[in-house]
């Protein structure tokens, strides 16, 4: 259980570090807030960088665009996907 709780925080730290988001602390990112467009306001280049970073960090593979869209909608959906795989 504690592993699962830690995942969102690891994702948040990864987002901030890998995307070099200045002025944003990991804890400022809400679990359910949208990552792209609104919310954190990431763009498609960020998505590409984030996929690479998450694949490296968690050993996951996002196999289709549809799945990617679903999984990358928020920190919460990402951590559920990762938790289901590990």
């Amino acid at each position, binding site marked *: 259980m504690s592993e699962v709780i830690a995942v969102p925080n690891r994702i948040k730290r990864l987002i901030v570090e*890998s*995307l*070099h988001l200045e002025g944003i602390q990991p804890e400022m990112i809400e679990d359910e807030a949208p990552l792209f467009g609104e919310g954190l306001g990431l*763009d498609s*280049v*960020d998505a*590409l*960088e984030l996929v*690479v970073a998450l694949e490296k960090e968690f050993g996951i593979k996002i196999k289709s665009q549809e799945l990617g869209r679903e999984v990358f909608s928020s920190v919460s959906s990402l951590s559920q996907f990762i938790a289901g795989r590990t």
Partner: protein
Amino acid sequence: MSDERAAGSMRRVAVSGVGAVSGLGWGTGPLWEGLRSGRTAIRPFCRFDGSLHRTHLAAEVPMGSPPEPAERRLTMADRFAVFAAREAMGQAGLEVPFDSQAADLETGVWFGSSTGGMFESERFFHRFVSDRRRSRLGDLAAQQVNGPGDAVARDLGVGGPVQTVSSACSSGALALGAALDAVRSGSVDVAVAGGSDSLCQLTYAGFNALRSVDEGPCLPFRAGRAGMSFGEGAAVLVLEPLERALARGVTPLAELVGAGSACDAHHMTAPDPSGAGAAAALTAALADAGLPADAVDFVNAHGTGTPLNDAAEWQALRLVFGERARTIPIVLTKAILGHLLGSAGAIEAVVTVLCLRHGELHPAPGEVPGAAQTGDHDALPAFLVLDRPHSLPAARTAVSTSLAFGGSNAALVFSRWSNGLAGGLKSGSS
């Protein structure tokens, strides 16, 4: 389409606003003040580690002074461009629709750039090799040469034509020529035209490899000149039909009355020493303006400071102006700002407009005010504006030249605005 457009008459084109970012700072205020001082902005720089290069100077844009446009994806060159465009639009009294709902279809952007986001691409590769975790794909994605013009269009909400010209060191002037055509023909009501380039290792190393860089600040047209100096920055001119500017109650800063271009078809990097191509561009620009060579009161020379450029340019001036070439004041902006490459033609256009507007030519650093150095074999026997500003309140018409790699030559002709008396209108051109 307005009636005026339908009539198809050639419209006179006003410069209704200018903006600039340069080694002298952010804005045309610091630009003009610095140029008047005659002190060069070419000095040691810190944008990247230049210690391995043969030379170690550049006119670097000072960071962190006024607020810079801060969109995350903007490259250095984009930021320069957006700042200059906002300044120019502000001066023109045109609304900058930061939160626009609909793009403005009557406005277009014509921009010159030589390297776009090359600096950021270099940063990506450097980090990719040295510390892969720090490399950002966004840096690589920013490399497009069209970046600065596109960033300006996004920032201003421009929905008309948006085009980038990349033809080395004449890019900025060629972009202005294209914008002039578009405003004259009526395809747009407003053209946001200029250029932007930032320092990067590609050009720094490239020109050094060609041995085209002076170890000290460059000395255009002077004895002892040994090459160019690097600069960076952006410049933007807002062009619109003269009548439109006047109807809006805006006092034009000048008129852009002619543009011309011609190619040496000679060599990849070296100019044709006869100056024929550069002379052809100048002649074409004057013909476009409907003005004789005698009407030109001063020249803002390309004047890079390389022995080959300056000698060829001098030949071109001799071909166009004959003996009068020795007495026309020559303004040497690159001695202060360095060479802005794809943005050089744009910033020198802004400087030419400012000189006309103020009735004063800015000096290059030098000991001899205004005099020709006829005694020295190396120096070109021209009337160089040196040491202190040269007052020329009666100046009505000026040309600015841009001579690029590949022999791509461009020239622009500006006329002072004075209550409808500005010259250069082609007679019977409707």
